[in-house]
């Protein structure tokens, strides 16, 4: 029997955890549980990145998701009629279509993973400090325009959304 390396074990373990928490998102009726299950699914993906020696990406994923999913939790609680899931509300709908869409998407992703020519595998990975330095140079050099444009677009969208929310709409009720 071939020995499984610790790295393979951890990546598989957190991969399965990510899938399991993803399932929990739809199994529960509580908005809080749903949001936090999604958080832990994303955290597990962050742990997978760390397992794949992409430390910066992993830690960043673990950090960002905690705030984002907490914000999502409060919006879900605010906007859903039955946030605790104690009533009879059903979160699922259009089940047949969802199942078909899900299966097609899954098969497409598997096909992409299997049939893409990924090129030669990197023999060694630079250490974490070097990765961070490379990433910094990349972000401040070649990719700067892309990231700054994306950042500015997001900021504009946020300001616009806030402005729309703050300004009371004068509806003409005729």
């Amino acid at each position, binding site marked *: 029997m071939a020995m499984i390396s610790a790295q393979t074990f951890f990546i598989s373990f957190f991969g399965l955890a990510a899938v399991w928490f993803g399932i929990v998102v739809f199994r529960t009726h509580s908005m809080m549980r749903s949001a936090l299950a999604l958080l832990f699914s994303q955290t597990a993906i962050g742990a997978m990145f760390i397992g794949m020696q992409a430390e910066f990406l992993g830690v960043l994923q673990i950090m960002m998701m*905690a705030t984002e999913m*907490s914000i999502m939790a409060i919006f879900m609680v605010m906007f859903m009629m039955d946030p605790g899931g104690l009533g009879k509300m059903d979160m699922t709908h259009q089940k047949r279509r969802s199942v078909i869409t899900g299966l097609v998407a899954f098969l497409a992703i598997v096909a992409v993973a299997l049939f893409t020519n990924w090129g030669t595998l990197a023999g060694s990975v630079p250490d974490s400090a070097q990765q961070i330095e490379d990433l910094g140079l990349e972000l401040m050099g070649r990719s700067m325009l892309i990231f700054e444009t994306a950042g500015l677009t997001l900021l504009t969208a946020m300001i616009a959304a806030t402005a729309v929310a703050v300004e009371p709409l004068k509806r003409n009720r005729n």
Partner: protein
Amino acid sequence: MTTALILLLLAVGAYLVAVIEAWTMNGRWQLAAPITAGIALLGRESIVPRKPDRVFFEVAPVLLLISALLAATVLPLTPGLIITDLATGVLFINAALVYVLVALLMAGWGPNGAYAMIGGWRFLGQLIAYAMLIVMPVTAVAMRAESLLTTQIVTSQADLWNILYQPLGFVLFFVAAMALAFLPPFDLTTATSELAGGVEAEYSGVRLAVFRLGRLVLVITLAATIVVFYLGGWQGPWLPPWAWSAIKILAVTALMLLAGPALPRVREADLLSLCWKLGIPLALLNIFVVGLQVLVWP
């Protein structure tokens, strides 16, 4: 070995935080009080409220403690005394501390109580705002050190401590650390007088003991973070490195706790507008000024 030693030091630190906190509240040095209070809590019944979200209710105090402990793993107390010197150390501290928010949301939602829930959601608003004041001053600290390694950050302050190099960043980070540890006057989450304990309200017995321990460890971890980022870490004349770390951490802890009883609790809306309208522009200014300083005085 290092891990065991640091855990022991954190336990001693948590005890000292409790002693100092009692001293700031009633002006007396009650050295046995934290221990007797702990034993009393452990001896009491740990009540589970009606219709709780049991998973959140049980996980929240433990998660609070774990996040505070995880943040402490990348903080160097002496040049060699650090559990893991991660290349992403600074980012890792933020990542660990954000789970304090998750823990308090769980503690707010889990017990199915109105006061607890208000406390939890209050902390959400508070932390989303003040997490910016953690991350942005830290960016300026990393800019000067040209590294995310916490040990590198300490050695970058050999000539001049960051409290003098970037005083604005220090003030912002200090305030944000107090808000993150929900210390008075930012204790809207627990607010004894208006929310009857807030997120703590429905906890009792051993669960409350774990919750309070988590909070004490969080305070000492944040004090150690301030020392590492702004007060030159273990560096100082005459005394050995561990002594300097200990003195500085305890002094910062005392300062964080002393501010509370002297000031009235800030209103939620004021707290948030203070951060978004004043704190964040100042933090951006701090990054800009430190950027210029780094270019001018390399």
